[in-house]
C-alpha cells in the first residue's frame, strides 16, 4: 500500500523541513492521501474511537496523578478530595473511570470485527499480534488502575490477582512477594502499581504506533476481505475516512457522555466506595465487567487434572484464552478472509460472540448459583414403629428446604398415629445446572472455536463466491438492494 509519496511541499519552509525531517510528508501519506478501501463499514471507525479512548485516558490520567496520593492512608481520601474539592475533579475522575470501560467496549468491538472479517489473516498477522499485545497491556493497566482508589474491590482484587502467581509451582510464592514488595498488598504495592499504571499507557501508545505502522504497510482489510487491486477500489483517507471516523466518534462520545454524566456508578461496584479493609473480604469479589469472561474461565476449572491442580488449571486456561489469540492467524485454515462469504463459519462466530457474553454473565454470578434443575428434591424414608410394621414416607419440594418442610409434616403425622419408631431417610437430589457447569460448557466452546472449528471448518466449508474486486462487490450489493427495492 505504501506507494510513492504524493506529498508536494507548498511553501519554502515545508520544503526546507521536508529535506531535514519529513514529518509532514509522513502525516500526509498516512492520514491524508492514504488509500482507504471504499467499502469499509462503521465497524472500521473503531480504530479512531480507540485512539480517542487512549488519548482521553492518558490526558485525564495525567491530571488525576496531579491530585492523587499513592499511600494507603491517603489514597481513598485523595480520590474523594478530587471528587469534592478539585475544580472539575468530579468530571475528570468520572471520565477516567468510565473511560476504562469505554476503552474496553471499543476494543472488544474492534477485536470481534477483526475476527469476523478475517483481519488477522496473511498478510496482517503481525498487525493482529500487535493488537493482542495492546489488549494484554490494556488489561494490565486497567487492573493496576483499579487498585489505586484503594476501596474494598481494589484491595481484594489485587489480593486475588497477585495470588494467581502462587499457582505456579516452586517459584510462584517468591514471585508473588516480589510483585507485592511484601507479604500482603500494602503501601509498597500501591506505590509500584501507581508507578506502573502511569508507565504502561505510554508503552501502549508505543505499540499503537507499531500497530498503525503495520496497518499502513499492509493496508486495511475490508468487509469483503478482498485485497485492493487498483485505485478504483479506494478513496483517499482524508476527507472520506476522516469525516466518517469523526461522525462515528461523536456518536460514541454521546454514549460515553451518558455514562459519565448520568450513570457514573453503573459500571463500577459499590464495594469500592468502602475503604480497603485487610480484615474483611467482601462477600462477592468480582472484577470489572470487561474481565468477567476470563474470570468465569478461571473459576470454571473446579477439578484437578493429574498433577495440575484446579487452581493452576484455571489459571492456565485463563491465560490460554488470551494466549490463543496470538496464534489465531495460523489456526484458521480458510482461504476466504471475510465471514461474509463463509456461510457456516458465520454461525459458529455468532455463537462464539454469544458464548463470550454468557461467560461474562457467569463471571458476575456466584459459582454455586443454580441456573436450572430437572425435577425436584425427594426425601424417601422408611419408618419402623416400635409396635411393628413398616411405612414408607415420600416428600418432594422444589428446594431442599421445601422438601424437608413437607417431610416434617408427614413425619409428625405418622409419629402421632403410629407411635415412636425408627426412621431411615435418603435424599434424592435432582440434577442441578449451576453456573460452574455452564461456565465449563462455555469454556469448552471458547477453545473449540479456535482449536477445532476454525482449523477444520476452513478445510471443509464451501464458501460463497467471492467477488474479484471491491468495486464489483459494491456493484453486487447495490444490485441486490435495487432488486429488493423493486
Amino acid at each position: 500500500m505504501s506507494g510513492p509519496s504524493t506529498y508536494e511541499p507548498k511553501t519554502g519552509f515545508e520544503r526546507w523541513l521536508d529535506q531535514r525531517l519529513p514529518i509532514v510528508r509522513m502525516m500526509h501519506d498516512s492520514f491524508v492521501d492514504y488509500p482507504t478501501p471504499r467499502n469499509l463499514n462503521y465497524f472500521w471507525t473503531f480504530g479512531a474511537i480507540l485512539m480517542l479512548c487512549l488519548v482521553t485516558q492518558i490526558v485525564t490520567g495525567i491530571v488525576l496523578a496531579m491530585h492523587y496520593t499513592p499511600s494507603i492512608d491517603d489514597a481513598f481520601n485523595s480520590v474523594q478530595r478530587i471528587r469534592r474539592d478539585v475544580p472539575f475533579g468530579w468530571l475528570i475522575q468520572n471520565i477516567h473511570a468510565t473511560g476504562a470501560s469505554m476503552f474496553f467496549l471499543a476494543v472488544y468491538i474492534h477485536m470481534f470485527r477483526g475476527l469476523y472479517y478475517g483481519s488477522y489473516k496473511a498478510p496482517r498477522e503481525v498487525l493482529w499480534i500487535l493488537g493482542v499485545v495492546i489488549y494484554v497491556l490494556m488489561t494490565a493497566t486497567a487492573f493496576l488502575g483499579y487498585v489505586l482508589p484503594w476501596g474494598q474491590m481494589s484491595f481484594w482484587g489485587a489480593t486475588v490477582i497477585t495470588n494467581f502467581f502462587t499457582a505456579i509451582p516452586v517459584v510462584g510464592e517468591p514471585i508473588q512477594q516480589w510483585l507485592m514488595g511484601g507479604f500482603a498488598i500494602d503501601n509498597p504495592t500501591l506505590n509500584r502499581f501507581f508507578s506502573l499504571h502511569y508507565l504502561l499507557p505510554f508503552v501502549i501508545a508505543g505499540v499503537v504506533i507499531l500497530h498503525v505502522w503495520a496497518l499502513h504497510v499492509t493496508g486495511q482489510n475490508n468487509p469483503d476481505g478482498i485485497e485492493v487491486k487498483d485505485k478504483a477500489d479506494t478513496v483517499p483517507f482524508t476527507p472520506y475516512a476522516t469525516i466518517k471516523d469523526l461522525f462515528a466518534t461523536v456518536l460514541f462520545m454521546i454514549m460515553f457522555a451518558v455514562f459519565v454524566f448520568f450513570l457514573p456508578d453503573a459500571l463500577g461496584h459499590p464495594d469500592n466506595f468502602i475503604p480497603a479493609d485487610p480484615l474483611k473480604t467482601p462477600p462477592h469479589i468480582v472484577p470489572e465487567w470487561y474481565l468477567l469472561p476470563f474470570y468465569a474461565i478461571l473459576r470454571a476449572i473446579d477439578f484437578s487434572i493429574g498433577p495440575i491442580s484446579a487452581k493452576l488449571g484455571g489459571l492456565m486456561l485463563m491465560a490460554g484464552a488470551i494466549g490463543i489469540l496470538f496464534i489465531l492467524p495460523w489456526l484458521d485454515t480458510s482461504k476466504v478472509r471475510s465471514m461474509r462469504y463463509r456461510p457456516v463459519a458465520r454461525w459458529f462466530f455468532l455463537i462464539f460472540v454469544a458464548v463470550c457474553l454468557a461467560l461474562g454473565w457467569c463471571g458476575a454470578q456466584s459459582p454455586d448459583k443454580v441456573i436450572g434443575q430437572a425435577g425436584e428434591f425427594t426425601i424417601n424414608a422408611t419408618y419402623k414403629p416400635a409396635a411393628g410394621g413398616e411405612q414408607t414416607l415420600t416428600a418432594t419440594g422444589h428446594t431442599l428446604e421445601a422438601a424437608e418442610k413437607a417431610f416434617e409434616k408427614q413425619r409428625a403425622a405418622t409419629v402421632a398415629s403410629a407411635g415412636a419408631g425408627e426412621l431411615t431417610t435418603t435424599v434424592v437430589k435432582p440434577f442441578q445446572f449451576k453456573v460452574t457447569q455452564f461456565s465449563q460448557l462455555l469454556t469448552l466452546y471458547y477453545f473449540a472455536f479456535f482449536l477445532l472449528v476454525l482449523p477444520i471448518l476452513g478445510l471443509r466449508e464451501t464458501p460463497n463466491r467471492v467477488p474479484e474486486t471491491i468495486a464489483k462487490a459494491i456493484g453486487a450489493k447495490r444490485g441486490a438492494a435495487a432488486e429488493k427495492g423493486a
Partner: protein
Amino acid sequence: MAESAVPAHGGGGDEPTRRDFIYIATGAVGAVGAAALVWPFINQMSPASDTLALASSEYDLSQVPEGQQVVIFWRKKPVFIRHRTAAEIAAARADDNAPLPDPQTDAERVVQSNGQPGKAEYLIVEASCTHFGCVPTFGGGSYGGWLCACHGSVYDTAARIRSGPAPANLVAPPYVYTSDTIVKIG
C-alpha cells in the same frame, strides 16, 4: 487520480455554497467544543476549595513579647508578626520622608485591610523578600530591620526596602483586628 473511485465534481450553481456552509459550521461548532473542553483541564490546576478554605487564620498578638517576632503560617506561607519597640517605631517614622525606593509612611505599613489604622507596635508582613522570595533575617543590614541573605536586600524597621535588588517593601497581608489582641489574617 483519474481512475480513482472519487468522481471529479462538476462545479454547479449554489451547490458549493451549501457544501461550504456545512463544513464551516461543523468546523466552527467543533472548535467551540474543543475550546470548552480545554477549560476544565486548565482550571483543575487552580487551588482546590479545601486549599482556598484555609485562606484565613487568626492569631493572638499577646503571645508576642515586645522586641520579639513570631513567624506564623498563612496560606502555607510564612508571615512575620513583629512586636516593635518604641525605638524601632521612632526610627521608622523618622525615615517617613527619606528617599525610599517604594515610598510608604510607617502608618501606612500597619493599616488594616478595611482601611482602619492598625497598631503601630505590631508590624505584620509576609516573610518573603520581594526580590525572589527568600526569608529575610531580622537584625541584619544597616537600617535596624531585616536583611535578605540571598541577594543582599536590606529592609528597615517598617520592613521597607532600603537597599539591594528587591523592588518593593515586604508585602503586608490583608488583616483586621477582631478584638484588642486577636488579628485575623486573610
